[in-house]
């Protein structure tokens, strides 16, 4: 469009701040929303989140949004929609033919997001059957986070390509690109991404997702993507650690009805504005580890040096329960003594040939 004019390019670099990509992970676990029905029904929460999305899009014309649903049996995209291929092109525009009801008084990006999110969410809910829900109260948080990260990765690459000069290292040495791209050297010149998790489920059911969730958290940490957590009900240890490790915001809402206000006040500022704000942080993060054998929370535990499993007491028969290695429990934590062998040798020498060393024998005798 305007890129033909060279001046546009310089303006962008000099004055314009890079846009931010907000990825919202909505926990759509029906069990948890059912409990919240009295204070904040899902429909109202979605309406609030849509207003929040609009506010984010309005902050900067180039701001981007992505919405992922973390459902009980799968994680799915709500926006941008994946099902109709190539409905969104490079700029995030939707081809004209997909428009349903023209609403001339609405800002176009707002309407597109709104349409897609509600339509996809409805599809997701319709596809959920009672059998899916039976006895399944967890949520696919790890999948949703991985999807969100893949999208962020894709958009970051695309953005860097569009704004060629932003990361010169990438273009000169293609082979070394991953480390440069993944290490976020110049923060102001790249797409600013962050993840907001609107969570309702407790963490007790998602223990089997521990490793994948932790992997996603470390990826975020490495890419400098803060994970904000808006906790409507329940309490999740993972999410506390997630926001703590990635320097995001963790808020457990005391009054879920005020969701919109919480979102607007706490979660709207992007990383750049956050440097100047006093953020609502949590000081008491639960870092304790649960042992693998009894799921007890431990202060001092035993760790297998091979597979790093945590035990609250030495496992039976000294065999690691996870990897089956025979473990040496004896003097754990003891440092090797400084040359213990020499003493032994000397003693042996004394005992074996006592008369052969006249010097040492004669001194005590005389």
């Amino acid at each position: 469009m305007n890129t033909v004019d060279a001046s546009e390019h310089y303006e962008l670099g000099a004055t314009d701040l890079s846009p931010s990509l907000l990825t919202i992970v909505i926990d759509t676990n029906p069990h948890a929303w059912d409990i919240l029905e009295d204070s904040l029904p899902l429909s109202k929460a979605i309406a609030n989140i849509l207003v929040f999305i609009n506010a984010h899009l309005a902050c900067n014309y180039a701001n981007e949004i992505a919405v992922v649903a973390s459902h009980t049996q799968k994680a799915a995209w709500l926006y941008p929609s994946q099902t109709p291929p190539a409905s969104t092109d490079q700029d995030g525009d939707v081809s004209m033919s997909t428009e349903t009801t023209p609403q001339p008084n609405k800002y176009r990006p707002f309407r597109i997001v709104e349409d897609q999110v509600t339509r996809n969410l409805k599809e997701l809910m319709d596809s959920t059957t009672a059998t899916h829900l039976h006895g399944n109260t967890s949520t696919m948080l790890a999948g949703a986070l991985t999807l969100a990260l893949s999208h962020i990765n894709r958009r970051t690459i695309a953005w860097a390509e569009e704004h060629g000069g932003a990361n010169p290292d990438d273009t000169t040495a293609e082979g070394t690109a991953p480390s440069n791209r993944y290490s976020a050297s110049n923060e102001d010149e790249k797409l600013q991404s962050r993840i907001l998790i609107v969570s309702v489920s407790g963490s007790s059911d998602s223990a089997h997702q521990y490793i994948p969730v932790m992997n996603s958290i470390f990826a975020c940490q490495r890419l400098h993507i803060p994970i904000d957590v808006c906790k409507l009900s329940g309490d999740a240890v993972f999410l506390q650690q997630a926001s703590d490790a990635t320097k995001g915001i963790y808020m457990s809402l005391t009054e879920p009805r005020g969701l919109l206000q919480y979102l607007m006040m706490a979660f709207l500022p992007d990383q750049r504005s956050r440097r100047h704000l006093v953020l609502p942080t949590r000081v008491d993060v639960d870092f304790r580890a649960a042992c693998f054998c009894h799921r007890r929370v431990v202060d001092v535990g035993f760790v297998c040096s091979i597979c790093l499993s945590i035990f609250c007491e030495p496992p039976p028969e000294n065999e690691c329960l996870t990897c089956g290695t025979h473990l040496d429990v004896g003097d754990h934590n003891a440092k090797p003594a400084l040359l213990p062998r020499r003493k032994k040798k000397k003693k042996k020498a004394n005992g074996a040939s006592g008369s052969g060393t006249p010097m040492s024998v004669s001194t005590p005798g005389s």
Partner: protein
Amino acid sequence: MADSDEEYVGDVTEDEDDLQVTRGDNPRAKKRKQRGGAEWELSRTWETLVEGADGTISSTVEGLLEANKRKRLLKDTTPLQRGIIRHLILIIDLSQSMSEKDVRPTRYLLTLRYAQEFVREFFEQNPISQLGVLGLRDGLALRVSDMSGNPTEHLTAIQALKTQDPKGLPSLQNGLEMARGALFHTPSHGTREVLIIFGSLLSSDPGDIHQTIGTLISDKVRVRVVGLAAQVAICRELCTKTNGGDETAYGVALNEQHFRELMMDVTTPPAAYSEKESASSLLMMGFPSRTVEATPSLCACHSNPSRGGYLCSRCNSKVCNLPAECPSCGLTLILSTHLARSYHHLFPLINWVEVPWRRASRSSACFACGISFPPVPPEDQWQVAESQTKGMSVSSRYECTACHSHFCIDCDLFAHEVVHNCPGCQSKSAE
């Protein structure tokens, strides 16, 4: 190209003949076998270029780029017992040969820059490991930073080297002896490793380096060398002997990028060879809780006043950073997240496979990021396309063998190098 390189090696060895105790042999004989030596000679990239149907080479170039990305990805994913708790000494050559400018800006500055990146990446990958840095200068081994688990100490120490100049001759033996001393007290459950960045073609040693190699073997220290100039016989012997006959521990950098790759390879925890080599044991570790106090107090580790900190779960001393060893009672203090960070080495993500056109019609867009794949051509063109490309997927699709979702090359890279999760497997419930 090959000839000129060997002449260069020959010149250098002749010049320095009188100085050296152990010197580089002619690499000609063994070069073919060696990793790093022969790769570039064989890859004549211009010959693989084939004009596309439209008369341009853009498609082939893209294919080569993709194949290159893919090459780095394919690694062994069999779950191994790995030495997660590592003790590594990084030895940097600081002798005059490092002032050569065959890599940009100089060998010295580039090595220091990569060393800093290496330290960062090392602690990223091995959060509960220890690292120390040594330098080789003027025939002496120089202690740059002590063994510690804190990356910032090493980074500042390496940064400080930048103001100094490389000088004198290196002594491998002195460096190895000092590294052996530094690793002597490390507990037996961890690995003992040495990584040498060696830019010289000689080692000016005070004694017999072969004896040192012998003691290194008996102390179970593994040595890896990244050479910058050409292959040196003693380095090769050192690596092979201390790694149980494994020759891949010695690599000679071809260019900046290859140099970097060789160094970054070392950040992956090594597979444990056998049980007797590293006695596995049960470690007692503390998982401290974080506190924030109303008034600042001194931390036990650095005696700096601070308000936040972690209290040792056994003796309640305050340390300011984790992971650490409690300064008063010696308990290893870590966060459970530090342990979790190593899990992807132990449970690696399986490699994804290339998808032939036959199965490509199942997907039209990448499952994870939604980028659209090239459409499936008519059946008679399949063979043509498949013969053109090697090392990459003809259909640009990569399939996870567990969940059968299709992904693009970027997501493939991203999933294996950064997230270590499969987006497909995690997004569908196991039924």
